[in-house]
């Protein structure tokens, strides 16, 4: 079977969950071959093997992660030329999509982004227009380059002993156009990443102020989930922009999404509509969010949310 290249998303050697999801998907379509770029491979090796990476191309040169996106695309383009993979999978994150875009130009291939599933023949499923339409698409020209949305596939352990091959690529001046001079990691405490979390609790206009977001955080922590916010809340400065779920923010697709004090404007729905189970707490019975929910409580979030947190803690 043909190799499927999987660009491993990691932060300094800490493998992101989406990478394991992509390995699982790749092994359904062919043979998963992980592509590791940057430092930290030794720490990640076992995990990649555990989730079925039969092969790993290791490009440890730190220079490859010193510039915005282009070096990763250059490396992948070289691997596409040398190894003739059947497809290339990347995470549909901001950076993953950009790598995919550059790789598409370099290899003259079609690219499909924000994909939620891939089946035989590399037919990709998209959930578009805020989840209103399911479309299937495929690549007609070149090597299919597919960016898959995090949380779309359940990662499955499939122990393998990866064969390692060291690889490198010579960067052109154009690849070095934008230098990363500093990486700033913002404190997120112990909470999981928003786009990767299995459970997300988001607060909106109804939360009423930055200080009240502790209610949302408390509920999220009781469930081991991530915190999100609607645009109304981030625009008001109650929670950082990087936690915004919605059309101009992040798209999330967790197992459980709890919307607290969020009316459910299209802006927000576009970012969370594909969540598997949706729960809402809102005092307005007419709020559009209730059209989406599996379970909804019409009530005061300041009563309901703390009670829910307490009840969950009690049941642990």
């Amino acid at each position: 079977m043909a190799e499927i290249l999987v660009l491993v998303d990691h932060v300094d050697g800490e493998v992101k969950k989406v990478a394991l999801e992509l390995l699982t998907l790749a092994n359904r379509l062919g043979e998963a071959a992980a592509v590791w770029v940057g430092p930290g491979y030794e720490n990640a090796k076992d995990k990649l093997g555990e989730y079925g990476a039969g092969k790993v191309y290791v490009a440890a040169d730190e220079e490859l992660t010193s510039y915005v996106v282009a070096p990763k695309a250059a490396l992948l383009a070289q691997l596409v030329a040398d190894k003739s993979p059947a497809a290339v999978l990347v995470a549909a994150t901001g950076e993953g999509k950009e790598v995919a875009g550059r790789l598409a130009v370099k290899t003259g291939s079609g690219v499909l982004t924000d994909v939620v599933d891939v089946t035989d023949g590399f037919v990709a499923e998209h959930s578009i227009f805020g989840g209103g339409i399911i479309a299937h698409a495929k690549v007609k020209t070149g090597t299919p380059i597919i960016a898959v949305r995090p949380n779309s596939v359940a990662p499955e352990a499939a122990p393998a002993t990866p064969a390692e091959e060291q690889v490198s690529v010579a960067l052109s001046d154009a690849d070095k156009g934008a230098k990363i001079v500093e990486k700033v990691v913002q404190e997120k405490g112990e909470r999981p990443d928003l786009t990767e979390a299995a459970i997300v609790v988001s607060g909106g206009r109804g939360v009423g102020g930055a200080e009240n977001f502790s209610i949302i955080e408390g509920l999220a922590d009781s469930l081991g989930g991530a915190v999100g916010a609607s645009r109304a809340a981030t625009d008001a400065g109650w929670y950082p922009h990087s936690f915004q779920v919605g059309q101009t923010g992040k798209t999330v697709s967790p197992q459980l999404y709890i919307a607290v004090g969020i009316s459910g404007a299209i802006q927000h729905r576009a970012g969370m509509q594909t969540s598997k189970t949706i729960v809402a707490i809102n005092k307005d019975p007419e709020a559009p969010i209730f059209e989406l929910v599996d379970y909804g409580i019409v009530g005061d979030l300041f009563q309901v949310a703390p009670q829910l947190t307490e009840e969950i803690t009690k049941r642990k």
Partner: protein
Amino acid sequence: MNIVVLVKQVPDTESPRKLKSDDSTLDRAAADGVINELDEYAIEEALRIKEAHGGEVTVLTMGPGKATDSIRKSLAMGADKAVHLVDDGLAGSDALQTSYALQQVLGRTGFDLVILGSESTDARTGVLAAMLAERLGVAQVSLANKVEIDGSAIKAQRQTDYGFDRVEASLPAVVSVVEKINEPRYPSFKGIMAAKKKPVETLGLGDAGIDAAQVGLANAATEVVDFAEAPPRAKGEIVTDEGDGGVKIAEFLASKKFV
């Protein structure tokens, strides 16, 4: 400073968005067209850079005749002139082809900075800035939430999943912006009146030197195989809180094995 802002007209997310059953392309008649929201942030950033450093802001749109609405609004916000790439031969182009067509036009207009929103609300591919930087061989300063220009140097903050990267590059560059970067201005009455007198150049494939065999639905590198409306979500249970709403949700979550 020669700043070109890429503006895409997209269906208003508040109106029904559809694909056409015959060729699976966007049904532009089904919904009102508006400027892609993140592109308004791109226009705003371009205007601020011009106000600080001088130069000219050109709006570049690829799209059908109706896209003139978005051009007019961009000019009313304060852009100096516009280029409208419009040709039936472009219909159904995918991202790869769109980046090629825009590259050809940018070769004509020249640029120190190309600024665009990080993705559109319709296709949401998020690839165009990267594709253009690749094609043009210039720096990619994408997902920017802060941009500073100093002479021919550009410093920016690039939004990442873990926070942000500080990025430095030299002009020319392609810059894509995220919502956090600024607050777009509303067109003033004076701006709306002034916009009527601003030049709009209309280009077809031949004018822009675009090879017709490299654009359009038939030549696209990707194709939509089929599409259907998503099955409606099963109607959930909605309960009015009578003092035990939190307990009830906990019971629901337990029934689904979340707790």
